[in-house]
């Protein structure tokens, strides 16, 4: 097998030389362009799955849906129509309440470009709804960022009815309910492990 020719190992006198390039006088003394930065844009249509369509449409009437696993009863939100842990269809829809707790959170001081609606600092949190067994991302407001805690109980603040659409953005943010916190050892995903051990221990417990 022969080696690939290496450009900078080719002797200079062997480099083919064409006729010299003549630049027009108007640009003959400008700095050569080595790189160009230019905005690019890509838009696409999203066609939701059957489970996602039900989920997004339910939002229009201020309902949050989840899927219950036929294997161990775990409730997934958003619903995907499957229990990916067990590779089975999970098409039982469950109506969830719009209250829950903060599993953990980030106080973001880095502004997202173009998001004037999101002044920094803001709190992004894992929201664990009562009756659901995984969390999802939500904005926490209605209190100082420094007062947000792991385990803090929250409820949804919805857009005015006239502005509701088939989108998770119907929930403007999550605000504290003022009820006692969920103990830190039971917050977030730990709730599922506790539930499993209380039930006598599942496969994963």
């Amino acid at each position, binding site marked *: 097998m022969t*080696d*690939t020719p*290496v450009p900078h190992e080719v002797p200079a006198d062997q480099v083919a030389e064409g006729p010299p390039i003549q630049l027009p006088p108007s640009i003959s003394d400008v700095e050569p362009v*080595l790189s160009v930065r230019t905005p690019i844009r890509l838009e696409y249509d999203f066609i939701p799955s059957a489970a996602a369509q039900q989920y997004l449409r339910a939002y229009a009437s201020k309902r949050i849906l989840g899927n219950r696993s036929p294997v161990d009863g775990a409730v997934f939100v958003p619903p995907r129509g499957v229990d990916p842990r067990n590779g089975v269809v999970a098409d039982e829809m469950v109506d969830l309440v719009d209250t829950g707790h903060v599993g953990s959170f*980030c106080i973001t*001081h*880095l502004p997202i470009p173009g998001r004037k609606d999101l002044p920094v600092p803001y709190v992004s949190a894992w929201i664990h709804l009562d009756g659901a067994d995984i969390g999802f991302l939500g*904005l926490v407001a209605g209190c100082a960022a420094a007062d947000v805690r*792991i385990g803090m109980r929250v409820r949804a603040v919805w857009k005015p009815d006239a502005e509701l659409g088939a989108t998770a953005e119907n929930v403007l943010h999550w605000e504290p309910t003022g009820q006692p916190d969920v103990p830190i050892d039971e917050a977030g*995903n730990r709730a599922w492990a506790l539930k499993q051990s209380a039930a006598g221990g599942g496969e994963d417990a």
Partner: protein
Amino acid sequence: MGGERTAVLGVGQTHYRSTRGDVSMAGLVREAAMRALEDAGLGWSDIDAVVIGKAPDFFEGLMMPELYLADALGCVGKPILRVHTAGSVGGSTALVAASLIQGRIHRRVLTLGFEKQSESNATWALSLPQPFSVSINAGAGGYFSPIIRQYMARSGAPELVGCMVAFKDRQHALSNPYAHLRQHDLTFDQVVEAPMLWDPIRFSETCPSSDGACAMVLGDEAAGDASPGKVAWVHGTAMRSEANNFPGRDEVNPQASRDCAVDLFRQAGITDPRREIDVVEMYVPFSWFEPIWLESLGFAERDRGWRMVEEGATRLDGGDLPVNCSGGVLSSNPIGASGMIRFAEAALQVRGMAGEHQVDGARVALGHAYGGGAQYFAMWVVGADKP
């Protein structure tokens, strides 16, 4: 670990910088590859195949760059294979290359990871609007901040442990001529006083955005024996992954991470990692992941990893388990190369070739990488002696 004994014959790195405007992607990968070949005392014709990895293509917006890089990597007419495992890709790319030797498919393989972050914006590439959820996550720091907050809450770690890790790694970087961040005048107070970006993560506790490439030449036992220089021998290789959100998931200490370490140490015959491993290159893009992974890998008891940081156990200067002597991801982060740099630096340590950041007498080293939502893991143990 079964199959053919595998050796690291050569290592090559580029200088890591925020912008390597002097080279194209092809020039960047070629620079690392040529240094690795030179270190191994080999030429392009000695290489049977190339295994290459980088972070997702949408970072730079160049689809399947491996196709156009085949020329620059001297592998026209030879097999080239691309690996995709997010931030862990540099590690898993090396492991795929190793598997081609272990399986006796090839005798010498060039493996390489790279990123040209100056041609991309990874933070906002990782913050794309998604139809299911609200768009409020600001980059990788926004994702990992809640995990770090959970770790701090459950371990009771003092608030400044993360700053200690960041300061240590930036000090280590001063001994690495390839490192991106070389902050000679940095003080601990400056680390502490830096602004919060993703509270509890300060600006000073995050990795930089770097251009760079790292390459290794791997060979079979005969190639290792014939190598003119000192080689590193692979003692164990392991990869694991898990979903990033499921009921009962332990985000702080993922099952996949623990399983990966158990498998790795079983292969390498290691029963007491803290005592038997001399030096660790670990994937720590945000400072708190040092104590988090120290626990997950079994170097410390659960909720006690931060004590090793506080006691200085992970310092190059006087620690019994130096971690990230190269300065780590906190000092250089060409994402697709960052995992391979960990693996390559581990090899350099056991070859005694780590220069100013060499750990005296290092015989056994761990290279570690993670990616995605702390869900993809790739690890290897390399040693000065044949396994």
